[in-house]
């Protein structure tokens, strides 16, 4: 307990750091996935390429990607951008197919009605297709966020910061308090972000609730 009291300040700071390392890739991944998912839902050829290619990226072990990234990006080995890039790739891998599928699932009659009322392509996407995709988007983001929370800790193996430091330090110095504090902090962060995203999704989708007829 005294370890915790002595290190609480640092634990809190590193937690924030960890949060950023995990969530920036989620946001960037979302911004990349939306247009890719839209392309895949719009053109069959785009789908045939994008869905399998982004899907397979998920099968590459994270450690391998962490090591390859500096070669691909031309960055320093310990640059945090490497981890962020990898996590972004995983996020994209999770989201593209889901987005393409959910955009496809918007009923033809709803799309035709939107066009018939005078929405142009872009207007229709933001006013109709995107809001209807929110439940699937939120589900995908929750998975990506929780996954990234733990992957950032793995990223510590190549020394990028985040709560992984407490695990590695703890193991090297047989400091169990440090290990447990690190694990608990990661789990709490993951639960917190998951809950927040769930609440956000709930607030954005009032039409999915309430009694039917």
């Amino acid at each position: 307990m005294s370890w915790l009291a002595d290190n609480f300040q640092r634990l809190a700071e590193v937690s924030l750091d960890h949060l950023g390392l995990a969530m920036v890739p989620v946001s960037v991944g979302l911004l990349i996935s939306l247009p890719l998912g839209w392309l895949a839902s719009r053109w069959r050829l785009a789908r045939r390429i994008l869905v399998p290619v982004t899907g397979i990226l998920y099968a590459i072990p994270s450690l391998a990607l962490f090591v390859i990234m500096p070669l691909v990006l031309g960055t320093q080995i310990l640059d945090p951008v490497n981890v962020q890039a990898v996590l972004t790739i995983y996020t994209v891998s999770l989201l593209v197919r889901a987005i393409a599928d959910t955009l496809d699932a918007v009923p033809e009659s709803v799309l035709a009605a939107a066009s018939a009322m005078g929405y142009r392509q872009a207007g229709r996407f933001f006013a109709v297709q995107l809001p209807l995709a929110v439940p699937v988007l939120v589900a995908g983001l929750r998975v990506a966020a929780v996954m990234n929370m733990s992957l950032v800790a793995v990223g510590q193996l190549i020394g990028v910061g985040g709560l992984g430091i407490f695990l590695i330090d703890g193991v090297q110095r047989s400091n169990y308090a440090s290990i447990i504090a690190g694990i608990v902090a990661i789990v709490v962060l993951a639960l917190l972000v998951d809950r927040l995203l769930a609440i956000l999704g709930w607030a954005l989708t009032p039409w999915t609730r309430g009694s039917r007829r």
Partner: protein
Amino acid sequence: MIEFQAVTKRYDDGTVAVDNLDLTIADGGITVLVGPSGCGKTTSLRMINRMVEATSGTILLDGQDVHAQRPATLRRGIGYVIQNAGLFPHRTVLDNVATVPMLLGAKKAAARERATELLATVGLPAELAKRYPAQLSGGQQQRVGVARALAADPPVLLMDEPFSAVDPVVRDDLQDELLRLQSELGKTIVFVTHDIDEAIKIGDKVAVMRVGGRLAQYDTPAALLANPVDDFVAAFVGRDRGYRALGFLSAHGVEVAPLATVALGSPVEAARAKLDSGWAAVVDEAGKPLGWVSAAGLSTMEGSVQAADLVSGGSLYVADTGGRTGSLRAALDAALSSPAALGVAVDSAGAVVGSVSAEAVLAALADARKAGEVPS
């Protein structure tokens, strides 16, 4: 006015959906495009608002080529009611209806006020405004679809099988509602259906199309029933078209004979004394028909005639009173559907005025034929 001039649509895969269509659609009426599935009705409709582009030919809307206008602008001035309503699931009923006014730049409050009015216009209670489409019945959704299409008060309304997905009773209500709305609004409506009965009920003019996208006949419903141009149209219009054609002939010549009536609650003895050929119609205090009693039925009753003892009646014929006149079809159906073989004729308030028999209807029809009132 909407004019199709030699309009052809050939899809990319070579399907000719509409073939050299010439059609003039008058203002202020309901023009129905009807034909079997796949005959090009939807394609024709969607070429008017350019959701489908014609391959060749010209479509004029009030004398202006639709191609001279940008699609989104054109569409904001044309109401479109789609099969299955196509409501936006994530918007409330009110916001669905407010969509086009908002697109046209109206303030949110003004658009919602307009939408509230429209819900009343299409016969929806105001409580539904805050609901989401999934919380409505199919019939209610279709009404919202109509309200949404009317929101910007477009002169032209395109309707693609709007009532096909609801059950027959609701469909009938929606059709009546559309006719009532149209009598108030006087829009130019192009209505697509595969249901010839619906076409005949609601159309001022009906265009029958055949597969391959060719126009088979363009006529009033009465003329279509009386004079189909060929076997295809005759078969499509249906076997009982002779009977249905009676729906367009006024029954003003049909003799309305006296009808034996008994007030509900009368003593059984008094009722028995009133029977005519073994039957009497039972009426309430306002004279509205409630059902029938027969000699056989009265023989098992005691005390007075009660509502539970009645044989239910057939359809009613609104006789020639107060300016409204039923059709020969209504008169004949009243006679045929009555357990006493006598149709109950009522006035416009619904009170019994007499009876009509099938013989009287046929006699009136024969007279009308002789007088040349029946197209043949």
